[in-house]
């Protein structure tokens, strides 16, 4: 939600999301641990790393689909996993999520997909909901597809429709899981612009999980890099900083699109890191 009149200068960064000493796993098996970072209000935060490094697992934990074994997530100082399910449900209404495949409900039209959260969580009349659905779809350039079913549109359109649904309730935080995956470079660049515009226009904070470097360099303000072997964070900073100034071989190789050091020249620290993680 925005407040007018808008300040002329950008506000000082303020932590909206805070992740502290989080340990993620299934049962007794620990997958990731020692994860700590803050996401500033109004910023775009990237969770980076190669395939299989646990980016999506971390995201699932942040949006309430996977309870962490240890540690805390706070949203505006409110402990996300503390309290009953209703507490998390209330916090989740401040979240919007764009899933990797769009995750549109196949039995509904695109318009109905966007309308459902508005029907469930607002008291707006049908006409107002229809107006809002048109605006959301208009923002992502999908207004002509309002009466189409997900099976009738392309992969890129599904992503944009998923984005329209994610912003249906004007969320404070938007989570994107691999938004550029499977898109051509032009569509991907347009989606990046759209994300930036929505961030600026809606004032939302964005957490993005991706390994698409061009997108990350374009849009992310800050982020963490997950180790492909141990799946723990090994670097913090903006993608550009990590590319230009990070000393870690794995991070440097990844951010500069070099063949993986773990494959070509074994990372001497990897074994030690994996040992430590056990």
């Amino acid at each position: 939600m925005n407040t007018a009149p808008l300040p002329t200068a950008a506000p000082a960064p303020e932590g909206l999301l805070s992740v502290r000493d989080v340990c993620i796993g299934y049962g007794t098996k620990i997958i990731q641990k020692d994860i700590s970072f803050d996401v500033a209000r109004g910023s775009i935060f990237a969770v980076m790393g190669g395939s299989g490094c646990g980016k999506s697992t971390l995201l699932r934990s942040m949006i309430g689909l996977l309870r962490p074994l240890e540690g805390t997530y706070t949203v505006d100082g409110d402990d996300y996993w503390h309290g009953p399910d209703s507490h998390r449900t209330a916090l989740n209404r401040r979240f919007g999520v764009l899933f990797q495949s769009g995750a549109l409900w196949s039995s509904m039209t695109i318009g109905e997909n966007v309308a459902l959260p508005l029907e469930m969580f607002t008291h707006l009349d049908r006409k107002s909901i229809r107006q809002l659905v048109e605006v959301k779809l208009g923002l992502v350039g999908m207004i002509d597809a309002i009466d189409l079913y997900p099976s009738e549109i392309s992969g890129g359109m599904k992503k944009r429709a998923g984005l329209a649904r994610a912003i249906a309730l004007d969320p404070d935080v938007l989570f994107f899981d691999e938004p550029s995956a499977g898109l051509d470079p032009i569509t991907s660049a347009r989606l990046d612009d759209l994300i930036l515009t929505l961030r600026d226009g809606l004032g939302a904070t964005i957490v993005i999980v991706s390994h698409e470097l061009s997108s990350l360099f374009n849009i992310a303000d800050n982020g963490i890099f997950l180790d492909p072997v141990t799946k723990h964070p090994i670097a913090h900073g903006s993608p550009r900083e990590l590319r230009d100034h990070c000393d870690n071989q794995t991070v440097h190789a990844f951010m500069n699109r070099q063949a993986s050091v773990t494959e070509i020249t074994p990372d001497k620290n990897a074994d030690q890191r994996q040992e430590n993680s056990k």
Partner: protein
Amino acid sequence: MQREADTPEWKVRNESGQLVVELTGHWTTDCLSIPSFTPGIFQNIPGNRSLSFDCTKLNDWDTSFISFLWTVLREADNAQIKVDTQGVPPSAQRLIALLPSQFHEAPSHRRKPPQVLHALGSGVTKALEVIGTTVLLGWDTLRSGFAPKRGQGRMRIRDLLSDIFDAGPSALLIVSIVNFLLGCILAFVGAVQLRKFAADAYVANLVGLACVRELSAVLTAIIMAGRTGGAYAARISTMLSNEEIDALRVFGIPVTSYIVLPSIASLMLMMPLLYLYGCLMSMIGGFVVTTGMLPSVTGIGYWHQTFGAVNLQQFEFGFTKSIFFAIMIGLISCQIGLNAGRSAADVGKAATSAVVVGIVGIIAMDAFFAVIAMVIDI
């Protein structure tokens, strides 16, 4: 209750020849409705051809505000009024820039309700098409069953065994329960009625004949249509939506050999056995109720009466029917699965269709067999 100062409001004022839309209050989706802008408000205003916004008294806003602004901008565009959006918060300007300047509601993609004749014609055409594709699928499956040797798209035995286990042993429990209860019900109804005519012993005839000739075969087939046919349709349509079927076709692996043949063959092998097992269970059900309800009928008497009433020909008839039921269930479920859509909803539709069409088909085929039985005097 919403305070008056919070209520989203708008008004148009004329400031020395320029129209100004003034917006006040909280413009958020927490309200009950987004205020509507009067259509055509700009059409009858002479001379004033420019419009600006005054948002100095605007409080919180979200996309409901953008929605209203968009409506105003489209109205202004229709009236060919020049618009200055400087008064709008800059972030709202960025969002407005993403929206098309005009949006005419596209004609709905949804189909209009069809007329009766049209619906009838399409229904018949579709039914013929389904019958045609099912027959073709059956023919292809039959041919793939005779693929001479390995390397020519032959069915994998592992798949056949897996399907046999699913269609046979896994279905034993439900077939047992349903057929046992069927025998119990028939015996109970028969006992109540036949006792009036002192024909207690003929309860065994009733249960035996009804189950062996008709009910065990039909009921077992209905169970298999619901349990196995629905599962086949759902599995194949899921494979279709995951592009697994496309992958088979691209590799040139015949879908009939890989999927359809094991499904039909397993049902053909298991259904007759389940029919025989179902007959036994229903007779046991009848035995339990008859000997419990009618003291005049002994256990040995019941079985003696049953074997006297039911001859081998009756079993052969039921056995043959169950083979045809198996072929039909397998073909229909595979055909529906292979022609399903590619979404999650289509998987559910395919499973439902397979069960419904399968059950209707079983009843229709049983009626056909009844006519044949009458003609050949079984």
